[in-house]
Structures are given as C-alpha cells and as structure tokens.
C-alpha cells in the first residue's frame, strides 16, 4: 500500500496526486503558513526565491532536510515542518540579502497605499537589519513612464522574474526578458528599450504578477486602497474574462484578473484591464435628448418616455406593429436582451427584432443548427489543454480574443500543431505549422479540398459517421467529384499544403476547431460553417474533450443575445416563431399574444425603411452608421424613418440622426449576465452607480414597457433570470443566486448542473447532418472586379473594440490612433505608394482615405484595414452582398481600387454611385 499521508507539524493529512509540498500545506493549513515570492498561482513554479523552504523529515522529528516547497512533490510519509527556528532564520536571511539590493524607503508601504506582496512578506518574516556593509542600491535604474498604462521602476526589482514568466507563459509574447548573468542579471524589455518601443502588447500580466512596484500601472492598481473589490465580467469580447474591479469613493481604482477565474485564470488583455475610463468620460450622455425643430433638446425621462410612447402608439395605430423594429445589443446583458425582444414582440407586437449577430455570427448559429441542432460552441476553452491539433479558420484571436489568442500561440509555440486558414498572415499564422492563405471569399473551396484530402489521405472516422451522422454518402460522392485543379487555382493555395494540413488535423486524437468572422461574413458564410461541421464529424471530432467546432464570439454577449431571442425568426431559446405550438407557448408565458411569422432582419429593415414600409426603429448600443456595411445606404434608410430611438453611452453617428437619444449605463454600472463564447453564463455585477442621468438598459426597457401599458416587473437580474429560465429550455436551472463567481455553461439542467461539452451521446438534432455545397464566386467580384480589381478585407486590432466608441475614449487611443490600409509591396510598388503615404480607397459604394502600410501580411491583390475610427469609416465602401441564408454582410470581400491621394486627408469619406 502506498502511504498517502503526510504530516504538517506532526498533524497527518491526506496527500493528493501530483501536489507540491506548498500545495499540500496551503490546502490543509491555508496560505499564510508559508510565505512565497517567486511563486504565483498561474505561473509554473520556478524555485528561485527559496523563501518557501520548509524542513522535511522521514520520521517524526527525524533528521530533516531543507526543501523548497513550491517545486518539491509531496510524498507519503513526509513529516513537514514549515516554520522551525532554522527555517525562520533562513527566510529572514534571504530577505536580508534581498534588502541589501533594494531601496530602504520601499521596505514599508507608502502612505495611503496598500502593501505590495513583497512588503507583506517582509512584514510576515520580520524586517531584518541589513548587516552587509556594501549593499549596492540600483539607483541607476531610471523609472520608465513611456507607456500610457504600464510603468516600471526597476530599482524595486527583486529579480523573481514573475513578469518575464508571465510575459512568456500567459501571453506567449517574450517581450520581457532577462539579460546578463548572476548578480548583474536584470529585466529587459525587447532589445533593452522602454515599454512603448518594446513591442509590448500591454496585457498587463507583468503588472499584476510583480510582487513589488518595479512594474506597476498608471492607476497604481496593486496598492490602491479600495472600499471593495467587485468581480464582474468584461464587456470587450466573447472570451468573457472575469475582472476584479477595485472601487473607492464611487470610482474605479483599477482592475485585476482573478486567478481563480475559470475563463481567464488571472490573465486578461489591455482592454479588459486598462481601458475602463470611458465610463467617466465627459462625452457620456447624461440626459435624454428629444429632437425638436431639428435640434436635440434635453428632456426628463418622463418627457422622453411619454414622447416615445406617444410616437410609437401613433405609428403602430397608423401603420401596424410591423412598421416598427428593434435592434438589441450584444453588449447588453442577457436579461436586457430578453426584455428588449419581449418588448418588441409583446408590447409592440412584431417579430422585427434583430441584433448584431446579424452582422457577425448568424451563419454560425444557422449552419451549426442545421448540422448539429445547436448553434453554439460544442466545447469549452479549457479543452485547448487536451487537444492534439488546433484548426483556426478566419479568425484573428490575438487581436480580437486576446486571452484565447495568447493561449493558442503558447500551445503552438510549445509544439501543438496549428493550422491557420486565413487570407492574412495573422500573428498566429507565424506560429502555425500550416498556413493556408487563401484568397478572400474562397472558404467553401478550400474546406471542400481539405475534406477531400482527409478522405483520400487522412483518417476518416467511419465508425462515427455510421453511428452518429446522416448524409455522408452524398458528401463523399461530392468530395470524390471535386476538381482539385480548379479549387487549387480558385484558392491560390498549393494543394500539398492543404493535403498535409488535412492529414495532420485528421490524425490527431482530438482536434479542435475555432473560427471567426472570416468564415461567416461572406456570401457563402453559412455554407462554409456547415463544411467545418462536416470536417469535424468525418473525423469524429465532436462530443469529446479537446475537439469540436468553436466559434469565437465577437462581442461579449453575442451568444446571449441570440439565446434570448434577439432574432426575427426565433424567440427566446431558439424556438421558431412561425410554429403555432411555439406561438401558443410564448403567448401563454407572456400573458399576451405574440405575433407569428418571421420579422425583418437588419438589412431587410433598411430596405423596408427605404421603401417606406418601416417607420420607426429602436436601436440599443450599436452605431450602425459606422459598423454596418454600405454606410450611404444605411444613412438613407435611417433618415427615411419617421421615428428613431437610440439608446447609447455616447453621441455616435447613429445617435446624431435619432429623434430620441436615451443615455444608458455602461457594464460597470449595471447588473445581469453575459454568456461567453463557450456558453458560460456569468454575472455582471454593478461596480459603480450609474452616472447621474443614465439608466441601465434593462431598466429603460422595463419602464417603457410599463409606460406603454404592459406590466413588467421592476428590472432585477434575479427576477429577469427567473422569468428567462421558465421559457428558455437550456436555462432551466439558472438562478442568479447560484451562478457563483464562475457562472455555468448551458444547457443548465434543472438541478443546476451545467454542460462542458455538447453532443456527447447524440446530437441535439438526433443525427449530425452532412451538407453538400459547391464553391460559388461572390456577386461582388463578379460585378465589380473588373472596375475595382483589388479585394479589400476588414478586421479588428487588439487596441480597439468595434466602432471604438469606448476604447477611443481611453488612453488606448494613444497606442493606436487611426485605421491603416495594409498593401502588399508588389502592389505598392505598382501604384507608387510608400509607407505612411495617404491613400485614397474606393469601391462602387463609396470612398475614403487612410494611411498605407506596406506589408506582406496581405497577398498581392488583397488590401486590409480595420473599422475602428470614424475618420476612415471604411463601411462607406463595403457592399450589400450578404450570406444568402442569414443576410450577414460580406465585410470580408469588397472590390476596391486605390491610389496615392493627392488631396491628403480632405477627400473622404464619402458616397459614390458607380
């Protein structure tokens, strides 16, 4: 029998497999017994400071050895003595050595600040008198204030290298390093420069982990005195990082990433950690505005509600409920989205409700519903650590989903094969084993090729196909009939690379797929999704750990908005609104009859408005004029409305043309839940009170519902969730009080248990269904590529979030100030364009100007830019072509041409009509 007992100060405890002595002590005796410095819970144990040393004997009071507890595995039969005289002396002597090389005035906490971790350890161990006569102070280290957020003062560095390890292990960035050797070794940034020039991506992992103020942030987050620390969920993307927000005197004092967060484990990105100051920006809207005689006038909430109720009732009476439409926001909570769709459906009486997933992941929802029965990620993000191969299609997670991106990069670096299918040489493509750099718009072609090569040369899981799926024969026949020569030409990717990648993916014991808007925002978006679903099924990569099809959700609550019924064809819980049984179910539940028949999708709303069929719209938290394609068309449509309500934080372009603007509260000022990309329903907690004059979106909707004569309980997430759990099947067991700090992944069963992996035994729809599609060229290129021979594709950057309305109002704008056009050197040479030249860019719809960067991130014939800044407004150029099943716009393929601009900044953006 193995001895599974070890002793701490002669008290026996059971040991756990794989545990270190430190883990063992902390688990049984708490964290205070053994001090540590170089150890951090989210970093690999390093064993450098030796402060955690303990004495270990093999019998009670037997001869003991001193061992560093952080990296020594505990064994049965150990007698561990964590605080003997010898150990206490050793710790004090080590502290004395550290202090011999540390500023005297930083031993104790600064006035009005909390102690640093090191200062706490000094106090716990006992402040020694430094007896070494020649202690050398590193006063020569100059403070570094070059970066808008991250500051350093390396005279306080104790060389535990937690920052370097965080930069490596958490962010896989390798900006921070160590130079020199022995006593002379020290932290370096990049090639020994300052933070701003070092290539730092500002994630702040070093700030959080540094046990002193050697690396800190502008907010002094670590040592800031807080009245409370409130855990909430980040608003900036579908990763759904948990944030610990420090609050004092009603203001945010800083944000850290909780180490026990299941999603982000002590890590987050610069948006989540640092870009929070928008909430108190002077630009915030603080009073309802009503347009009177062409100008906005401040109004009270009552005036605004009355005005809205009166106008909406008028329009409804005159033109019917279907002349009104609502757009809800993926930045809002589940509860708010639920209420908004309920308001539109029940109070207004129309299914004209849609949300921003229309412009992003609607094809994912549709395609995966067709194939599997559920339009959501099949697996959890932690499955990354169980996978043997990662396939990334049309996504740039190091920019748009930074924590996931950093993890994928770390895995690729450490040897997990990564396959990237993307027209851009994205950051992760550098680390990929295979980069299939296809021409934008050819995903269906390359995925067909990929599947064919799996069938022909790779490992096809015929057992899974036979037991779990239907429609294989047709797909197989289709694959065998493909003309590889033609597909190779279409994609522009060497078939050998595709073949090798396909073999690699299929050979892995478990292979995990991720995709983003590079798949969905295409004319053949939904088709490409089903092909991805096919590929996962034919290799048996569904329903098991480390596998699956996993959309990277763009906004923080895209998943939740769709779950809550913010779609014209499905109500809360994805039930089809045109089904009479469902209709009755909803009507009974809401106590008022709901409309049947599918409503308008966003592009259809614009068309209806232009035709005069749609008279009024209510838009929450979305700047359609900046983010929807073909701005001139959108502007026409919105201006053609009789009545437009916009609920916003800031005066956006869209708000500017509204009839009523309602000032909403930000995520820091409200409560509710967000559902992240892995179906995890997480709490959003109120961190600060709503800015005076603003109201949480949920409260606004509830109040207007009541004002328009429908009783809706006062907004509170607990009651709203209770209502949701009564109608959304996969929310059945969700209770506000039970969500805890890490939330739950849906489906949540009645007993409150969540679900890590979908489709383990059978698919939601019974059998998984193979779909068969051929590649078809987009109408955009067929119509315009002669006149506009270049392909523009768009995306996002790390520093800004979508329209940038929030991030541009933070110091992030010091890091990146404008949208830039990426041009391949060959094209740049042909057009006589150099780096930083101003370029005029035009399509059939519009034109704009922006600065050029000459780079091989794009292939010849392709240009790329982002859409974060109104100065560039790239959506003046984007097209009306959309996915044929979901109407998700084709942002990723735009026929354009460009030239060096003669007029500089003054010639755009604007409309054209070619």
């Amino acid at each position: 029998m193995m001895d599974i007992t070890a002793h701490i100060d002669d008290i026996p405890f059971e040991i756990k497999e794989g545990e270190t002595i430190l883990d063992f002590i902390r688990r049984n005796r708490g964290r205070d017994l053994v001090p540590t410095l170089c150890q951090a819970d989210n970093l690999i144990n390093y064993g450098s400071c030796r402060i955690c040393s303990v004495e270990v004997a093999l019998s009670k009071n037997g001869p003991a050895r001193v061992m560093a507890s952080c990296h020594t595995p505990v064994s049965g039969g150990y007698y561990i003595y964590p605080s003997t005289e010898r150990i206490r002396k050793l710790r004090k002597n080590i502290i004395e050595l550290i202090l011999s090389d540390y500023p005297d005035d930083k031993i104790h906490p600064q006035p009005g600040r909390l102690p640093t971790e090191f200062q706490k350890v000094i106090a716990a161990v006992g402040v020694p008198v430094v007896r070494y006569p020649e202690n050398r102070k590193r006063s020569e280290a100059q403070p570094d204030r070059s970066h808008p957020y991250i500051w350093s003062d390396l005279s306080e560095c104790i060389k535990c290298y937690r920052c370097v390890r965080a930069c490596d292990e958490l962010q896989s960035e390798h900006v921070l390093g160590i130079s020199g050797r022995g006593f002379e070794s020290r932290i370096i940034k990049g090639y020994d420069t300052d933070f701003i020039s070092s290539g730092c991506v500002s994630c702040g992992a070093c700030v959080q982990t540094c046990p002193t103020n050697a690396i800190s942030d502008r907010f002094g987050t670590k040592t800031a005195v807080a009245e409370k620390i409130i855990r909430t969920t980040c608003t900036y993307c579908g990763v759904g990082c948990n944030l610990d927000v420090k609050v004092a005197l009603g203001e945010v004092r800083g944000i850290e990433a909780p180490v026990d967060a299941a999603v982000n484990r002590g890590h987050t990105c610069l948006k989540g950690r640092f870009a929070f100051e928008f909430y108190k920006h002077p630009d915030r809207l603080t009073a309802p505005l009503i347009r009177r005689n062409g100008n906005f006038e401040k109004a009270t909430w009552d005036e605004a509600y009355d005005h809205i109720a009166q106008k909406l009732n008028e329009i409804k009476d005159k033109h019917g409920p279907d002349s009104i439409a609502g757009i809800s926001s993926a930045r809002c909570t589940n509860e708010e989205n639920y209420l908004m769709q309920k308001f539109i459906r029940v109070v207004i009486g129309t299914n004209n409700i849609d949300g921003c997933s229309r412009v992003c992941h609607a094809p994912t929802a549709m395609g995966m519903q067709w194939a599997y029965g559920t339009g959501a990620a099949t697996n959890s993000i932690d499955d990354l650590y169980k996978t043997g191969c990662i396939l990334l299609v049309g996504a740039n997670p190091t920019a748009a989903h930074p924590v996931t991106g950093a993890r994928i990069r770390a895995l690729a670096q450490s040897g997990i094969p990564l396959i990237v299918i993307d027209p851009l040489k994205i950051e992760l493509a550098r680390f990929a084993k295979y980069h299939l750099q296809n021409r934008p718009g050819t995903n269906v072609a390359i995925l067909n090729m990929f599947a064919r090569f799996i069938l022909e040369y790779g490992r096809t899981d015929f057992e899974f196909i036979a037991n779990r799926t239907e429609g294989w024969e047709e797909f197989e026949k289709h694959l065998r009939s493909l003309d590889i020569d033609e597909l190779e030409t279409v994609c522009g990717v060497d078939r050998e690379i595709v073949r090798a990648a396909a073999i690699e993916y299929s050979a892995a014991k478990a292979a995990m797929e991720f995709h983003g808007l590079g798949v969905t925002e295409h004319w053949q978006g939904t088709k490409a999704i089903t092909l991805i679903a096919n590929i996962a099924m034919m290799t048996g990569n569904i329903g098991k750990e480390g596998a699956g099809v996993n959309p990277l959700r763009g906004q923080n609550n895209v998943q939740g908005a769709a779950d809550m019924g913010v779609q014209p064809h499905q109500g809360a819980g994805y039930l089809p609104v045109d089904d009479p049984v469902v209709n009755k179910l909803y009507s009974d539940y809401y106590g008022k009859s709901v409309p049947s028949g599918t409503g308008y999708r966003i592009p259809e709303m614009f068309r209806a408005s232009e035709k005069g069929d749609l008279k009024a719209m209510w838009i929450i938290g979305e700047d359609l004029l900046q983010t929807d394609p073909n701005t001139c068309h959108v502007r026409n449509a919105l201006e053609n409305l009789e009545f437009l309500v916009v609920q916003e934080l800031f005066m956006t372009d869209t708000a500017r043309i509204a009839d009523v603007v309602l000032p909403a509260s930000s995520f820091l000022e409200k409560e509710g839940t967000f559902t992240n990309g892995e179906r995890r329903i997480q709490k959003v907690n109120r961190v600060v009170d709503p800015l005076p004059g603003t109201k949480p979106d949920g409260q606004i909707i509830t109040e207007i519902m009541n004002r328009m004569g429908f009783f809706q309980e006062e907004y509170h997430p607990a009651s709203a969730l209770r209502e949701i759990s009564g109608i959304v099947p996969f929310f059945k067991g969700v209770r506000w009080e039970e969500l805890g700090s890490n939330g739950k992944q849906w489906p949540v069963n009645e007993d409150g248990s969540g679900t890590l992996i979908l489709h383990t035994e059978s698919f939601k729809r019974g059998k998984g269904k193979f779909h068969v599609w051929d590649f078809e060229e987009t109408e955009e290129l067929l119509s315009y590529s002669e006149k506009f021979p270049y392909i523009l594709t768009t995306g996002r950057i790390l520093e800004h979030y979508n329209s940038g309305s929030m991030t541009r109002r933070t110091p992030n704008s010091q890091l990146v100030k404008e949208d830039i056009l990426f041009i391949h050197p060959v094209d740049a040479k042909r057009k006589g364009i150099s780096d930083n030249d101003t370029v005029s860019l035009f399509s059939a719809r519009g034109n704009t100007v922006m600065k050029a960067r000459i780079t091989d991130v794009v292939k010849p014939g392709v240009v790329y830019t982002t859409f974060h800044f109104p100065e560039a407004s790239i959506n003046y150029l984007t097209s009306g072509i959309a996915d044929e099943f979901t109407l998700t716009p084709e942002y990723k393929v735009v026929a354009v041409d460009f030239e060096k601009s003669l007029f500089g900044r003054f010639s755009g953006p604007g409309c054209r009509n070619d």
Partner: protein
Amino acid sequence: MSRNLRGLSERKGLKESLFEEIVRAGAGDGRAGIESADAIREKYLIGRSSVLGVSSFYDFLKKEHRGKKVFICDGTACLTSGGNIRLKQELLKIYGEDEIGTVTCLGHCHSNNAFMQGGRTLVWDGSPLPVPEPESAGKAAVKIRTGTNAGKPALLNPPGDLKEYYGILRTFCSDISGAIGQIERSGLRGRGGAGFSFSAKKQASRSALGTRKYIICNADEGDPGAFSDKWLLEERPHSVLFGMMAAGMVTGADTGILYIRGEYPEAVTAVKNAVRELVSEKITSRNLWKCDKEFTFHVVEGAGAYICGEETSLINSLEGLRPEVRTRPPYPATYGLFGLPTLLSNVETFANIRYILTEGGEAYAALGTEKSPGTKLVSLDGAFNSPGLFEVRMGTPLREVFEDLGGGTRYPVKAFQIGGPLGGIVPSEMVDRLTLDFESFSANGFLLGHAGVVSVPEEFSISELLWHLFEFTSRESCGKCFPCRLGAKRGEELLAGAIREGRKIDRELFNDLLDTMQLGSLCALGGGLPLPVRNAMKYFPDEMSQMFY
C-alpha cells in the same frame, strides 16, 4: 525556463541550433547586435529579449571580452601557484594591460602556464616570448604525463583498431540485457562529482517513454584543478564516443551530443575528428547493431559559462535558452533536451563503459571498493614533482597517490583543495586519513568531486583563496536563485573588504550567509561553496580569525 521558447527552438532542432546561431551572431562583435537579433527572432519566432538574454549570458560574447588579445588562465591552481602572475608579467612585455583578459580554467593545472589566443591554448615555457607576433607568442602544450596504480587501467589505454574497438557492440546488440547486466554489476557511479548511480540514470532514461531520446555527454565541467575530461576528450575521444553509443543502444536513444567547454578548443577539434573518423570508417550504429535509426553525434562548443556544467543549465544552453538551473523533478531522464528523455552523464563516466563491457562489470568493480567501484582519474597540479593525470584504484590511500604517483610536492603545501572550487579544503595533516573514494571523503567532511588536486602553498593566504572562491561563484552564478545570486556577491564583498581594506567581518553574519547559501541554493554552485569555506574556518582558525571581529 520556458516551455514555449523550448518548443520554438525544438522546431529547428540541433541541425539549426538556436544556441549556435546566437553564439555565431554574438561572437563577431560581442553580444548579438539588434539586426542579427532580429534575424534570429524572425527565424525562430522568439522575442528580441530572448536573443539578448542568451547572448548577454556568456563570457565569450561579452563586450568586455572584445579587444582582448590574450586570456590568461586564472583557475585556482594557476592562482595558488602564482603561475598566473608570472605569466601576466611576461605577457605585459608584449600587450597592454587592457589587452589581457582572464579565463577559468584551461586545464593546465599541471603546468600553470597556459593562456588562450586566437582560439588556441598556448603555454609559456619560461623562455622569453617572441615580440610582437601575437599569433605565435606561446607554444602548443606538451602532452600530459599519465600513470596508474591499476594493473590494467580502464581509461588510459589507446583504442587500437577502431573497427575492433567498436565492434564489440555487435555482440551486445542481440543481448542488450547482457550489456545492462554488466553495467549494473559494475556499480559505476557518475564521475561528474555527485557520484549518482549511472545504472539508475540509464534505467530511468531507458524506461521513459518517447519516440526520441538523447544521450548527452557533459564535457563542460570546468572545475579548476581537474583536467581529466580534457585529457580524455583530446587523447581518448573514442572511449567517450563508444560509451555514448553503448548508452544509446541500451536506452533506445539515437542522438548523442557532446557539449564541450569553449575553454578546451583542442578537445573540440579532437572529438570532431574522432566523429569524422567514425563516419569515414563506416562505424555506424546501423552497421554495428541492427537499429533502424542511425546514431548521430553532435559536437557543440560552449561559450564560456561555468554553470553549464550543471546538467539542467547545460540542457537549457543547448536549447538556446538562458542556461539557468531548472527545478527538479522532473529529471533529465524523463524531461531533458527539448523536454524529451535524456541520459546525461560526465565524460569519464562514459569512458568507463567499454572496459565494463569487455572485462565485465565484476572486474571493473573489483578495481575499487564496494561502494566506490572502479578507478578514478586524479589530476595533480604543478606543485607536485610529477604532475599529471593518474588513473587510481578507488580506495587507494591518498598519501600513496600523492607520493607514489605524484612524487610529493616541490615546496611546502599547507592544504589541498580537492574536487574543484566546491570541493573541500583538505589540510596536509588530514591527507593520511583519507583514501581515494567517495565515502572516505564525505565521511571526513570533504568531497571527491572531479578529483582534481590544487595545492595551497604554505605562504598562500587561505582568506585569499576563499575570496577567489566567492568571486568565482559570484561571477559564475546563473543568477536565478536568490541565495547564490546575492549571497556569493555579498560574500565576495565581505572578503574583499577584509583583505583589501582590513575591515573586520561580523562572524555571525558570515555564518548566516554560509547557512543561507548551503540550505537555500537551487544547485550545487551556491549550495557547495560553504563546504570549502567551512573547512578553511575549521582547519585554519588562526589565519581566518584575523578577518573577524
């Protein structure tokens, strides 16, 4: 330290070794410049800081190293014998003070007259050095004298016909368990200093799962005072290669790497030549035993860092990471080079294997004692009348080694530091109580280590020697663990203050410092230094007490 960087380095493997690329970039003009750093960063996808971090670690790549025309050995034996001072005075006739650097140690402890120039080791034979032809200032070293008290030595004899020498592996290829049995019966213990059972290491590596495994010969154990590895590499390279091949055969590894100190340029050349000989003679694993994979050798030259003699530092160095000491477990046998199973052992250990396989494990064991089987190469420094390298049966009285083989010392010696800079300081009167084996040394509070013997002349100050040891440790500390990084520096400063300025040292502080380094250090560098210091304090209390309050 980084699994991510390790993975990125592994992509290019040993053929396009990141380490060698950084050394090449840095060798020309000191540390890798930013342009070459960027080229390396692009090729290996690592950070700029990762390149600079590595290139700034090694002596040979340091800025201070540039501009020096000649490097004098300042190893312990050259220091205690005064050889380095005499040599410097001679070289100053030709070079300026700032053109003369130091290097530790060139393995000429038997002659105490070596320096390095233009990538070669040269010696000064006492006659005036020619001026001003720097390239030929010195002379190539003469052969080291050898001797033995073992009837049929295991290590000294030349290989003879190579086909026959390696051919015996053929007989074991069908009887691997027979080979394993011989090695087990030999009781062979690692000759790198720790004396860990070779058989246990081999077994751990053999049973580790892995499609690829490595055999690494640690030829970077630069203990001043010992020149046994240098001699084996230069004079008997085939015995080392044979041992590595045999280890590959029994563990299933197909790659052997010799990481050789940059301070032994002639050894690098000799080993490379020996590997070439194997290729030209078609002595390959495929021909010797029917393995599918060819056993290939890589010879890697170090870039000047003593810590790379520590096994995990050496592996990190080979990977192109900063050669910091890793925490253990995991041990190299399961998580070694590129995270793969690796059997890493010392030069002399590998060199013993052929004798064991041909003469049998029992015969080998019988050369030594029950717990310290076999023989040990002993390096005697220039203070002896017959300095040189001697293969000595374990258990031989130390006095016998010194007198019968070394012919006694030329001048009065008050102590011997045996086993490298971390080995004990043995006062002359203790020599009679010691026998040459692991047990006798450790029972008496010393360390056999590499069995290099450095004599401390009667007039040489013990505190001066300790200052040198602290200075050496401080200079060579990798800087990872706090006790060694800070402690060695503070100890060096305390001794410097006492010796140079006559300041007194707080005895309690000094003892605390020794305790902290001994108990707290991550590896044997910081952890081992207190042993000779405590020996000195114990056996030379009068001399030492002048330094303390």
